[in-house]
Protein backbone atom coordinates (compact mmCIF):
# COMPACT_ATOMS: atom_id res chain seq x y z
CA UNK A 1 0.00 0.00 0.00
CA UNK A 2 1.13 3.57 -0.71
CA UNK A 3 2.81 5.59 2.03
CA UNK A 4 0.13 8.30 1.91
CA UNK A 5 -3.45 7.45 0.99
CA UNK A 6 -5.93 10.19 0.17
CA UNK A 7 -9.65 9.56 0.38
CA UNK A 8 -12.41 11.94 -0.70
CA UNK A 9 -15.98 11.28 0.45
CA UNK A 10 -18.30 13.51 -1.55
CA UNK A 11 -21.98 14.23 -1.95
CA UNK A 12 -24.53 16.55 -0.42
CA UNK A 13 -25.01 17.98 3.07
CA UNK A 14 -27.07 15.60 5.25
CA UNK A 15 -25.69 12.36 3.76
CA UNK A 16 -23.39 11.82 6.73
CA UNK A 17 -20.14 12.27 4.85
CA UNK A 18 -18.39 14.25 7.54
CA UNK A 19 -19.25 11.63 10.17
CA UNK A 20 -18.06 8.92 7.77
CA UNK A 21 -14.74 10.75 7.42
CA UNK A 22 -14.35 11.08 11.18
CA UNK A 23 -15.05 7.35 11.65
CA UNK A 24 -12.55 6.42 8.95
CA UNK A 25 -9.87 8.69 10.43
CA UNK A 26 -10.55 7.32 13.91
CA UNK A 27 -10.28 3.75 12.61
CA UNK A 28 -6.89 4.55 11.06
CA UNK A 29 -5.51 6.85 13.73
CA UNK A 30 -6.77 5.38 16.98
CA UNK A 31 -7.48 1.69 16.29
CA UNK A 32 -4.91 0.93 13.55
CA UNK A 33 -2.44 3.34 15.19
CA UNK A 34 -1.45 5.08 11.98
CA UNK A 35 -1.40 8.80 11.31
CA UNK A 36 -4.68 10.24 10.07
CA UNK A 37 -6.13 13.67 9.32
CA UNK A 38 -9.74 14.45 8.50
CA UNK A 39 -10.85 17.74 6.97
CA UNK A 40 -14.13 18.89 5.52
CA UNK A 41 -15.65 21.35 3.16
CA UNK A 42 -19.27 22.39 3.12
CA UNK A 43 -21.49 25.36 2.46
CA UNK A 44 -23.49 27.50 4.88
CA UNK A 45 -26.65 25.36 4.40
CA UNK A 46 -27.77 22.96 7.17
CA UNK A 47 -28.92 20.40 4.57
CA UNK A 48 -28.27 20.08 0.86
CA UNK A 49 -25.47 21.91 -0.90
CA UNK A 50 -22.17 20.27 -1.74
CA UNK A 51 -20.36 18.51 1.08
CA UNK A 52 -17.10 16.65 1.17
CA UNK A 53 -14.98 15.04 3.81
CA UNK A 54 -11.34 14.25 3.19
CA UNK A 55 -9.18 11.73 4.99
CA UNK A 56 -5.44 11.32 4.64
CA UNK A 57 -3.89 8.16 6.12
CA UNK A 58 -0.16 7.56 6.42
CA UNK A 59 2.43 5.62 8.40
CA UNK A 60 4.36 8.86 8.86
CA UNK A 61 3.41 12.31 10.18
CA UNK A 62 1.12 14.09 7.75
CA UNK A 63 2.14 17.54 6.49
CA UNK A 64 -0.46 18.74 3.99
CA UNK A 65 -3.79 17.77 5.56
CA UNK A 66 -5.98 17.79 2.47
CA UNK A 67 -6.36 15.64 -0.61
CA UNK A 68 -4.01 16.54 -3.45
CA UNK A 69 -5.16 13.66 -5.70
CA UNK A 70 -7.69 11.13 -4.42
CA UNK A 71 -6.73 7.47 -4.34
CA UNK A 72 -10.28 6.64 -3.29
CA UNK A 73 -13.37 8.67 -4.21
CA UNK A 74 -16.87 8.07 -2.92
CA UNK A 75 -19.55 9.92 -4.88
CA UNK A 76 -23.07 10.01 -3.47
CA UNK A 77 -24.41 12.62 -5.91
CA UNK A 78 -23.99 13.21 -9.63
CA UNK A 79 -22.70 16.74 -8.97
CA UNK A 80 -20.01 15.47 -6.61
CA UNK A 81 -19.00 12.76 -9.06
CA UNK A 82 -18.67 15.26 -11.91
CA UNK A 83 -16.65 17.65 -9.77
CA UNK A 84 -14.18 15.33 -8.05
CA UNK A 85 -13.67 12.51 -10.54
CA UNK A 86 -11.12 14.67 -12.39
CA UNK A 87 -9.00 14.68 -9.28
CA UNK A 88 -8.77 10.89 -9.01
CA UNK A 89 -5.39 9.21 -9.53
CA UNK A 90 -5.04 7.02 -12.62
CA UNK A 91 -4.96 3.82 -10.60
CA UNK A 92 -7.50 5.08 -8.06
CA UNK A 93 -10.91 3.73 -7.14
CA UNK A 94 -14.30 5.36 -7.62
CA UNK A 95 -17.25 4.09 -5.59
CA UNK A 96 -20.43 5.64 -6.99
CA UNK A 97 -23.93 5.33 -5.59
CA UNK A 98 -25.87 4.32 -8.69
CA UNK A 99 -29.10 5.38 -6.98
CA UNK A 100 -27.88 8.95 -7.37
CA UNK A 101 -25.07 8.84 -9.93
CA UNK A 102 -26.26 7.78 -13.35
CA UNK A 103 -23.47 9.05 -15.55
CA UNK A 104 -19.92 8.00 -14.97
CA UNK A 105 -17.32 9.89 -17.01
CA UNK A 106 -14.80 7.66 -18.77
CA UNK A 107 -11.75 7.43 -16.55
CA UNK A 108 -8.83 5.09 -16.14
CA UNK A 109 -9.55 4.55 -12.44
CA UNK A 110 -11.41 1.44 -11.33
CA UNK A 111 -15.14 2.14 -11.05
CA UNK A 112 -17.53 0.36 -8.71
CA UNK A 113 -21.20 1.23 -9.00
CA UNK A 114 -23.87 0.16 -6.57
CA UNK A 115 -27.30 1.53 -5.51
CA UNK A 116 -26.19 2.28 -1.95
CA UNK A 117 -29.00 4.63 -0.87
CA UNK A 118 -31.68 2.35 -2.35
CA UNK A 119 -30.19 -0.70 -0.63
CA UNK A 120 -30.01 1.13 2.70
CA UNK A 121 -33.73 1.86 2.48
CA UNK A 122 -34.69 -1.61 1.21
CA UNK A 123 -32.54 -3.74 3.50
CA UNK A 124 -32.29 -1.64 6.66
CA UNK A 125 -35.34 0.59 6.39
CA UNK A 126 -33.44 3.91 6.51
CA UNK A 127 -31.39 6.05 4.16
CA UNK A 128 -29.48 7.35 7.18
CA UNK A 129 -27.02 4.45 7.10
CA UNK A 130 -25.92 5.10 3.50
CA UNK A 131 -22.69 6.57 4.87
CA UNK A 132 -21.86 3.49 6.94
CA UNK A 133 -22.68 1.04 4.12
CA UNK A 134 -20.36 3.16 1.95
CA UNK A 135 -17.58 2.84 4.54
CA UNK A 136 -18.11 -0.94 4.57
CA UNK A 137 -17.80 -1.03 0.78
CA UNK A 138 -14.66 1.14 0.75
CA UNK A 139 -12.92 -0.85 3.49
CA UNK A 140 -14.04 -4.16 1.94
CA UNK A 141 -12.67 -3.16 -1.46
CA UNK A 142 -9.45 -1.47 -0.40
CA UNK A 143 -8.54 -2.57 3.16
CA UNK A 144 -7.44 1.03 3.71
CA UNK A 145 -8.10 0.34 7.39
CA UNK A 146 -8.56 -3.05 9.10
CA UNK A 147 -12.09 -4.43 9.43
CA UNK A 148 -11.62 -4.65 13.20
CA UNK A 149 -10.65 -0.98 13.36
CA UNK A 150 -13.62 0.22 11.33
CA UNK A 151 -16.02 -1.89 13.42
CA UNK A 152 -14.69 -0.37 16.64
CA UNK A 153 -14.72 3.14 15.18
CA UNK A 154 -18.35 2.85 14.00
CA UNK A 155 -19.50 1.55 17.40
CA UNK A 156 -17.62 4.31 19.23
CA UNK A 157 -19.05 7.18 17.17
CA UNK A 158 -22.73 6.37 16.48
CA UNK A 159 -25.39 6.98 19.17
CA UNK A 160 -26.08 3.80 21.21
CA UNK A 161 -29.73 3.48 20.17
CA UNK A 162 -28.76 3.13 16.52
CA UNK A 163 -25.62 1.08 17.07
CA UNK A 164 -27.21 -2.17 15.89
CA UNK A 165 -28.47 -0.85 12.57
CA UNK A 166 -25.12 0.79 11.91
CA UNK A 167 -23.24 -2.44 12.65
CA UNK A 168 -25.55 -4.22 10.22
CA UNK A 169 -24.94 -1.49 7.65
CA UNK A 170 -21.19 -1.93 7.94
CA UNK A 171 -21.42 -5.72 7.49
CA UNK A 172 -23.76 -5.19 4.55
CA UNK A 173 -21.10 -2.93 3.04
CA UNK A 174 -18.47 -5.66 3.47
CA UNK A 175 -20.76 -8.16 1.67
CA UNK A 176 -21.42 -5.74 -1.18
CA UNK A 177 -17.66 -5.18 -1.55
CA UNK A 178 -17.08 -8.93 -1.79
CA UNK A 179 -19.67 -9.21 -4.56
CA UNK A 180 -18.39 -6.13 -6.36
CA UNK A 181 -14.91 -7.64 -6.36
CA UNK A 182 -16.17 -10.88 -7.83
CA UNK A 183 -18.45 -8.88 -10.15
CA UNK A 184 -21.63 -10.67 -9.12
CA UNK A 185 -24.82 -9.00 -10.23
CA UNK A 186 -26.84 -6.71 -7.99
CA UNK A 187 -29.98 -8.91 -8.00
CA UNK A 188 -29.16 -10.36 -4.61
CA UNK A 189 -29.95 -7.02 -2.98
Amino acid sequence: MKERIEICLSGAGGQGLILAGIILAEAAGIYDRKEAVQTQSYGPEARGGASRSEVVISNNPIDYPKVIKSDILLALTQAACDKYVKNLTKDGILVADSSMVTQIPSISAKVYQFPITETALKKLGTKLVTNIISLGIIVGLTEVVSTEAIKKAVCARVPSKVKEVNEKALLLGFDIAKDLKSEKCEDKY
Partner: protein
Amino acid sequence: MNNLKKEKNIKLLQGNEACVEGAILAGVRFFAGYPITPSTEIAEGMARRLPRLGGKFIQMEDEIASMAAVIGASIAGLKSLTATSGPGFCLKQENIGFAAINEIPCVVVDVQRGGPSTGLPTKPSQGDMMQARWGTHGDHPIIALAPSTVNEILTLTIKAVNFSEKYRTPVILLLDEVIAHMREKVEIPTQKDIEVIDRKKPTVPPEEYLPFKPDSDGVPPMANFGEGYRYHITGLIHNYKGLPTSNSQEIDAFIRRLHNKIQKNVKDIIINEKYFLDDAKIALIAYGSVARAAERTVKLAREEELKVGLLKLLTIWPFPFEEVNRLAQQVDLIIVPEMNLGQMVLEVERAAQGRCRVVSYSRVDGELINPIEILGKIQEEISK
Protein backbone atom coordinates in the same frame (compact mmCIF):
# COMPACT_ATOMS: atom_id res chain seq x y z
CA MET B 1 1.18 -5.15 31.02
CA ASN B 2 3.56 -2.26 30.61
CA ASN B 3 1.48 -1.08 27.70
CA LEU B 4 -1.56 -0.88 29.89
CA LYS B 5 0.28 1.19 32.46
CA LYS B 6 1.56 3.60 29.88
CA GLU B 7 -1.76 3.88 28.04
CA LYS B 8 -1.77 7.46 26.87
CA ASN B 9 -4.80 9.64 26.43
CA ILE B 10 -4.73 9.77 22.63
CA LYS B 11 -7.82 11.03 20.86
CA LEU B 12 -8.84 12.13 17.41
CA LEU B 13 -9.71 15.73 18.17
CA GLN B 14 -11.02 18.60 16.13
CA GLY B 15 -8.91 21.76 16.27
CA ASN B 16 -11.64 23.64 18.13
CA GLU B 17 -11.97 20.75 20.61
CA ALA B 18 -8.22 20.86 21.21
CA CYS B 19 -8.53 24.57 21.97
CA VAL B 20 -11.10 23.72 24.66
CA GLU B 21 -8.80 21.05 26.14
CA GLY B 22 -5.90 23.51 26.19
CA ALA B 23 -7.98 26.25 27.78
CA ILE B 24 -9.25 23.96 30.54
CA LEU B 25 -5.73 22.68 31.26
CA ALA B 26 -4.39 26.24 31.39
CA GLY B 27 -6.97 27.06 34.02
CA VAL B 28 -9.57 29.00 32.02
CA ARG B 29 -12.77 29.00 34.07
CA PHE B 30 -14.82 31.67 32.30
CA PHE B 31 -16.09 31.86 28.75
CA ALA B 32 -18.43 34.46 27.31
CA GLY B 33 -19.18 34.48 23.62
CA TYR B 34 -21.57 34.64 20.77
CA PRO B 35 -21.36 31.51 18.59
CA ILE B 36 -20.12 31.94 15.02
CA THR B 37 -18.89 29.53 12.37
CA PRO B 38 -16.15 28.29 12.22
CA SER B 39 -15.50 28.79 15.95
CA THR B 40 -18.77 27.50 17.41
CA GLU B 41 -17.37 24.18 18.67
CA ILE B 42 -15.19 26.12 21.12
CA ALA B 43 -18.29 27.71 22.70
CA GLU B 44 -20.07 24.34 22.69
CA GLY B 45 -17.13 22.61 24.33
CA MET B 46 -16.72 25.29 26.98
CA ALA B 47 -20.47 25.17 27.70
CA ARG B 48 -20.18 21.42 28.34
CA ARG B 49 -16.95 21.49 30.33
CA LEU B 50 -16.94 24.65 32.45
CA PRO B 51 -19.99 24.08 34.69
CA ARG B 52 -18.59 20.71 35.84
CA LEU B 53 -15.38 22.45 36.91
CA GLY B 54 -17.15 25.19 38.82
CA GLY B 55 -16.53 27.60 35.95
CA LYS B 56 -19.00 29.79 34.12
CA PHE B 57 -20.20 29.86 30.52
CA ILE B 58 -22.34 32.73 29.28
CA GLN B 59 -23.78 33.21 25.82
CA MET B 60 -24.05 36.98 25.61
CA GLU B 61 -26.24 39.10 23.33
CA ASP B 62 -23.35 39.91 21.01
CA GLU B 63 -19.56 39.95 20.66
CA ILE B 64 -19.13 43.40 22.21
CA ALA B 65 -20.88 42.28 25.38
CA SER B 66 -19.03 38.96 25.47
CA MET B 67 -15.66 40.71 25.31
CA ALA B 68 -16.79 43.01 28.11
CA ALA B 69 -17.87 40.00 30.19
CA VAL B 70 -14.50 38.34 29.62
CA ILE B 71 -12.73 41.47 30.86
CA GLY B 72 -14.98 41.69 33.91
CA ALA B 73 -14.46 38.04 34.82
CA SER B 74 -10.70 38.42 34.46
CA ILE B 75 -10.62 41.47 36.75
CA ALA B 76 -12.55 39.38 39.26
CA GLY B 77 -9.80 36.77 39.09
CA LEU B 78 -10.86 34.08 36.60
CA LYS B 79 -8.78 33.15 33.60
CA SER B 80 -11.08 34.08 30.73
CA LEU B 81 -11.38 33.28 27.05
CA THR B 82 -13.70 34.03 24.16
CA ALA B 83 -13.86 32.65 20.63
CA THR B 84 -15.13 34.17 17.43
CA SER B 85 -14.51 34.63 13.73
CA GLY B 86 -13.76 37.72 11.61
CA PRO B 87 -17.18 39.43 11.84
CA GLY B 88 -17.20 39.03 15.62
CA PHE B 89 -13.50 39.85 15.96
CA CYS B 90 -14.32 43.32 14.54
CA LEU B 91 -16.88 43.90 17.27
CA LYS B 92 -14.54 42.81 20.03
CA GLN B 93 -11.84 45.29 19.03
CA GLU B 94 -13.06 48.20 21.14
CA ASN B 95 -12.91 46.14 24.31
CA ILE B 96 -9.63 44.49 23.29
CA GLY B 97 -8.20 48.01 23.43
CA PHE B 98 -9.71 48.43 26.89
CA ALA B 99 -8.07 45.15 27.98
CA ALA B 100 -4.73 46.32 26.52
CA ILE B 101 -4.69 49.71 28.28
CA ASN B 102 -5.83 48.21 31.58
CA GLU B 103 -3.50 45.22 31.25
CA ILE B 104 -6.25 42.69 31.74
CA PRO B 105 -5.23 39.11 30.97
CA CYS B 106 -7.59 37.45 28.46
CA VAL B 107 -7.45 35.28 25.35
CA VAL B 108 -9.41 35.95 22.17
CA VAL B 109 -9.58 33.08 19.68
CA ASP B 110 -10.24 34.23 16.12
CA VAL B 111 -10.97 31.37 13.73
CA GLN B 112 -10.42 33.10 10.42
CA ARG B 113 -12.97 32.69 7.62
CA GLY B 114 -13.26 34.47 4.30
CA GLY B 115 -14.10 38.17 4.50
CA PRO B 116 -14.74 41.08 4.43
CA SER B 117 -18.04 41.22 6.34
CA THR B 118 -19.88 37.89 6.74
CA GLY B 119 -17.87 36.78 3.70
CA LEU B 120 -17.43 33.01 3.57
CA PRO B 121 -18.68 31.44 6.82
CA THR B 122 -17.40 27.92 6.15
CA LYS B 123 -14.22 28.64 4.23
CA PRO B 124 -10.70 29.46 5.40
CA SER B 125 -8.73 32.68 5.08
CA GLN B 126 -5.82 34.51 6.66
CA GLY B 127 -7.35 37.92 6.14
CA ASP B 128 -7.22 38.88 9.83
CA MET B 129 -3.42 38.91 10.15
CA MET B 130 -3.32 42.71 10.32
CA GLN B 131 -6.58 42.98 12.26
CA ALA B 132 -4.99 40.82 14.94
CA ARG B 133 -2.24 43.44 15.20
CA TRP B 134 -4.02 46.72 14.54
CA GLY B 135 -7.71 45.93 14.97
CA THR B 136 -8.10 48.21 17.94
CA HIS B 137 -6.96 51.82 17.70
CA GLY B 138 -4.00 53.57 19.25
CA ASP B 139 -0.49 52.35 19.98
CA HIS B 140 -1.11 49.13 21.80
CA PRO B 141 0.92 46.00 22.35
CA ILE B 142 -0.46 42.60 21.37
CA ILE B 143 0.63 38.98 21.29
CA ALA B 144 -0.81 36.73 18.56
CA LEU B 145 -0.10 33.01 18.23
CA ALA B 146 -0.88 30.91 15.16
CA PRO B 147 -0.79 27.09 15.38
CA SER B 148 -0.85 24.83 12.32
CA THR B 149 -1.68 21.41 13.77
CA VAL B 150 -4.37 20.23 16.16
CA ASN B 151 -1.68 19.37 18.69
CA GLU B 152 -0.23 22.88 18.39
CA ILE B 153 -3.70 24.34 18.93
CA LEU B 154 -3.76 22.58 22.30
CA THR B 155 -0.25 23.62 23.33
CA LEU B 156 -0.50 27.19 22.02
CA THR B 157 -3.85 27.73 23.74
CA ILE B 158 -2.05 26.94 26.99
CA LYS B 159 0.77 29.30 25.99
CA ALA B 160 -1.72 32.03 25.06
CA VAL B 161 -3.33 31.85 28.51
CA ASN B 162 0.11 31.78 30.16
CA PHE B 163 1.37 34.79 28.19
CA SER B 164 -1.79 36.74 29.01
CA GLU B 165 -1.28 36.10 32.72
CA LYS B 166 2.47 36.63 32.71
CA TYR B 167 2.44 39.88 30.74
CA ARG B 168 -1.06 41.09 31.69
CA THR B 169 -2.15 41.54 28.11
CA PRO B 170 -4.85 40.34 25.73
CA VAL B 171 -3.51 37.49 23.58
CA ILE B 172 -4.97 36.58 20.19
CA LEU B 173 -5.00 32.93 19.14
CA LEU B 174 -5.32 33.10 15.37
CA LEU B 175 -6.71 29.93 13.79
CA ASP B 176 -8.30 29.33 10.40
CA GLU B 177 -11.27 27.24 9.27
CA VAL B 178 -9.07 24.39 8.03
CA ILE B 179 -7.19 23.72 11.25
CA ALA B 180 -10.15 24.57 13.50
CA HIS B 181 -12.36 21.96 11.81
CA MET B 182 -9.56 19.49 11.08
CA ARG B 183 -9.30 16.32 13.14
CA GLU B 184 -5.96 14.81 14.08
CA LYS B 185 -4.50 12.54 16.71
CA VAL B 186 -3.66 14.40 19.88
CA GLU B 187 -2.06 13.17 23.05
CA ILE B 188 -3.84 15.09 25.78
CA PRO B 189 -1.31 15.94 28.48
CA THR B 190 -2.07 15.58 32.16
CA GLN B 191 -2.07 18.59 34.43
CA LYS B 192 1.36 17.71 35.80
CA ASP B 193 2.88 17.59 32.29
CA ILE B 194 2.23 21.25 31.59
CA GLU B 195 3.39 24.59 32.89
CA VAL B 196 0.61 26.89 34.10
CA ILE B 197 1.39 30.54 34.83
CA ASP B 198 -0.81 32.64 37.12
CA ARG B 199 -0.82 36.44 37.30
CA LYS B 200 1.27 38.09 40.01
CA LYS B 201 -0.78 39.14 43.04
CA PRO B 202 0.09 42.15 45.22
CA THR B 203 2.28 41.47 48.25
CA VAL B 204 1.34 44.72 49.97
CA PRO B 205 -1.83 45.40 52.00
CA PRO B 206 -4.77 47.14 50.19
CA GLU B 207 -3.97 50.60 51.56
CA GLU B 208 -0.46 50.49 50.06
CA TYR B 209 -1.49 48.94 46.71
CA LEU B 210 -0.78 50.95 43.55
CA PRO B 211 -2.57 48.95 40.83
CA PHE B 212 -0.55 50.24 37.88
CA LYS B 213 2.89 50.56 39.44
CA PRO B 214 5.08 48.07 37.58
CA ASP B 215 7.65 45.75 39.10
CA SER B 216 11.11 45.71 37.52
CA ASP B 217 9.77 43.43 34.74
CA GLY B 218 7.35 46.17 33.66
CA VAL B 219 4.27 44.22 34.80
CA PRO B 220 2.23 45.47 37.78
CA PRO B 221 0.90 42.88 40.26
CA MET B 222 -2.84 42.43 39.79
CA ALA B 223 -5.37 42.34 42.62
CA ASN B 224 -8.71 40.65 41.95
CA PHE B 225 -11.82 42.73 42.46
CA GLY B 226 -13.70 41.55 45.51
CA GLU B 227 -10.64 40.68 47.57
CA GLY B 228 -10.47 43.98 49.45
CA TYR B 229 -8.23 45.86 47.03
CA ARG B 230 -10.38 48.77 45.83
CA TYR B 231 -9.07 50.52 42.74
CA HIS B 232 -10.10 52.44 39.69
CA ILE B 233 -10.06 51.09 36.13
CA THR B 234 -10.49 53.43 33.17
CA GLY B 235 -9.95 53.48 29.44
CA LEU B 236 -8.17 56.82 29.88
CA ILE B 237 -4.39 56.90 30.16
CA HIS B 238 -3.82 56.54 33.89
CA ASN B 239 -1.24 56.94 36.63
CA TYR B 240 -0.05 54.33 39.15
CA LYS B 241 -3.30 54.70 41.06
CA GLY B 242 -5.38 54.02 37.98
CA LEU B 243 -6.66 57.60 37.86
CA PRO B 244 -6.70 59.60 34.59
CA THR B 245 -3.58 61.67 34.00
CA SER B 246 -2.64 64.45 31.62
CA ASN B 247 0.92 64.68 32.89
CA SER B 248 3.02 64.25 29.73
CA GLN B 249 5.83 62.48 31.57
CA GLU B 250 3.41 59.95 33.05
CA ILE B 251 1.70 59.46 29.69
CA ASP B 252 4.97 58.83 27.87
CA ALA B 253 6.24 56.43 30.52
CA PHE B 254 2.93 54.56 30.54
CA ILE B 255 2.70 54.01 26.76
CA ARG B 256 6.37 52.99 26.53
CA ARG B 257 6.05 50.57 29.44
CA LEU B 258 2.96 48.99 27.86
CA HIS B 259 5.04 48.20 24.77
CA ASN B 260 8.28 47.40 26.49
CA LYS B 261 6.84 44.68 28.70
CA ILE B 262 6.24 42.76 25.43
CA GLN B 263 9.20 44.02 23.34
CA LYS B 264 11.78 43.30 26.04
CA ASN B 265 10.55 39.72 26.24
CA VAL B 266 10.41 38.79 22.56
CA LYS B 267 12.87 35.95 23.23
CA ASP B 268 10.29 34.37 25.53
CA ILE B 269 7.30 35.17 23.32
CA ILE B 270 8.50 34.49 19.77
CA ILE B 271 8.23 30.84 18.78
CA ASN B 272 8.94 29.39 15.35
CA GLU B 273 10.14 26.24 13.65
CA LYS B 274 12.68 25.74 10.90
CA TYR B 275 12.56 23.06 8.20
CA PHE B 276 15.58 22.51 5.96
CA LEU B 277 16.75 26.10 6.35
CA ASP B 278 20.42 25.31 7.04
CA ASP B 279 21.53 25.26 3.40
CA ALA B 280 18.47 26.94 1.91
CA LYS B 281 18.77 29.48 -0.88
CA ILE B 282 15.00 29.95 -1.10
CA ALA B 283 12.88 30.31 2.04
CA LEU B 284 9.15 30.01 2.50
CA ILE B 285 7.62 31.86 5.44
CA ALA B 286 4.15 30.71 6.47
CA TYR B 287 1.85 30.12 9.41
CA GLY B 288 -1.40 28.23 10.11
CA SER B 289 -2.77 25.70 7.65
CA VAL B 290 -0.67 27.25 4.85
CA ALA B 291 2.48 26.21 6.73
CA ARG B 292 1.35 22.58 6.29
CA ALA B 293 1.23 23.09 2.52
CA ALA B 294 4.61 24.83 2.59
CA GLU B 295 6.16 21.96 4.55
CA ARG B 296 5.14 19.53 1.81
CA THR B 297 6.39 21.95 -0.85
CA VAL B 298 9.82 21.86 0.81
CA LYS B 299 9.89 18.04 0.52
CA LEU B 300 8.78 18.17 -3.13
CA ALA B 301 11.36 20.85 -3.91
CA ARG B 302 14.15 18.89 -2.22
CA GLU B 303 13.24 15.88 -4.41
CA GLU B 304 14.00 18.16 -7.35
CA GLU B 305 17.24 19.21 -5.65
CA LEU B 306 16.04 22.75 -5.07
CA LYS B 307 17.46 24.22 -1.87
CA VAL B 308 14.17 25.30 -0.33
CA GLY B 309 13.43 25.61 3.38
CA LEU B 310 10.57 26.81 5.57
CA LEU B 311 10.34 29.21 8.49
CA LYS B 312 7.06 28.33 10.18
CA LEU B 313 5.82 31.06 12.49
CA LEU B 314 3.94 30.10 15.64
CA THR B 315 4.13 33.63 17.05
CA ILE B 316 3.07 36.15 14.40
CA TRP B 317 2.84 39.22 16.71
CA PRO B 318 5.24 40.53 17.80
CA PHE B 319 6.65 39.80 14.36
CA PRO B 320 9.98 37.90 14.39
CA PHE B 321 11.89 40.78 12.88
CA GLU B 322 15.43 39.60 13.82
CA GLU B 323 14.84 36.04 12.62
CA VAL B 324 13.53 37.14 9.23
CA ASN B 325 16.31 39.72 8.87
CA ARG B 326 18.95 37.01 9.43
CA LEU B 327 17.19 34.72 6.98
CA ALA B 328 17.14 37.49 4.35
CA GLN B 329 20.95 37.70 4.62
CA GLN B 330 21.24 33.95 3.98
CA VAL B 331 18.82 33.30 1.12
CA ASP B 332 18.33 34.83 -2.33
CA LEU B 333 14.56 34.72 -2.27
CA ILE B 334 11.73 34.58 0.27
CA ILE B 335 8.27 33.50 -0.84
CA VAL B 336 5.33 34.27 1.45
CA PRO B 337 2.26 32.14 0.68
CA GLU B 338 -0.89 33.51 2.32
CA MET B 339 -4.66 33.10 2.09
CA ASN B 340 -5.04 36.87 1.60
CA LEU B 341 -3.82 39.43 -0.93
CA GLY B 342 -0.51 39.92 0.88
CA GLN B 343 -0.49 40.98 4.53
CA MET B 344 2.37 39.13 6.21
CA VAL B 345 4.54 39.75 3.14
CA LEU B 346 4.60 43.46 4.11
CA GLU B 347 6.16 42.62 7.48
CA VAL B 348 8.60 40.24 5.80
CA GLU B 349 9.65 43.00 3.38
CA ARG B 350 10.17 45.37 6.31
CA ALA B 351 12.27 42.83 8.16
CA ALA B 352 14.25 41.79 5.07
CA GLN B 353 15.32 45.42 4.51
CA GLY B 354 16.08 44.73 0.86
CA ARG B 355 18.68 42.08 1.65
CA CYS B 356 16.92 39.55 -0.59
CA ARG B 357 14.00 39.39 -2.99
CA VAL B 358 10.60 38.98 -1.27
CA VAL B 359 7.66 37.65 -3.25
CA SER B 360 4.01 37.17 -2.29
CA TYR B 361 1.86 34.20 -3.26
CA SER B 362 -1.84 34.78 -2.66
CA ARG B 363 -4.98 32.74 -2.76
CA VAL B 364 -8.37 34.24 -1.89
CA ASP B 365 -10.93 31.80 -3.35
CA GLY B 366 -11.80 30.15 -0.05
CA GLU B 367 -9.62 27.10 -0.70
CA LEU B 368 -6.43 26.17 1.12
CA ILE B 369 -3.23 26.83 -0.86
CA ASN B 370 -1.82 23.50 -2.01
CA PRO B 371 1.84 22.41 -2.10
CA ILE B 372 1.94 22.03 -5.88
CA GLU B 373 1.05 25.70 -6.51
CA ILE B 374 3.75 26.90 -4.14
CA LEU B 375 6.25 24.67 -5.95
CA GLY B 376 5.01 26.18 -9.21
CA LYS B 377 5.63 29.66 -7.83
CA ILE B 378 9.18 28.67 -6.82
CA GLN B 379 9.89 27.36 -10.33
CA GLU B 380 8.40 30.48 -11.90
CA GLU B 381 10.60 32.73 -9.76
CA ILE B 382 13.76 30.69 -10.45
CA SER B 383 13.25 30.93 -14.20
CA LYS B 384 12.95 34.74 -14.02
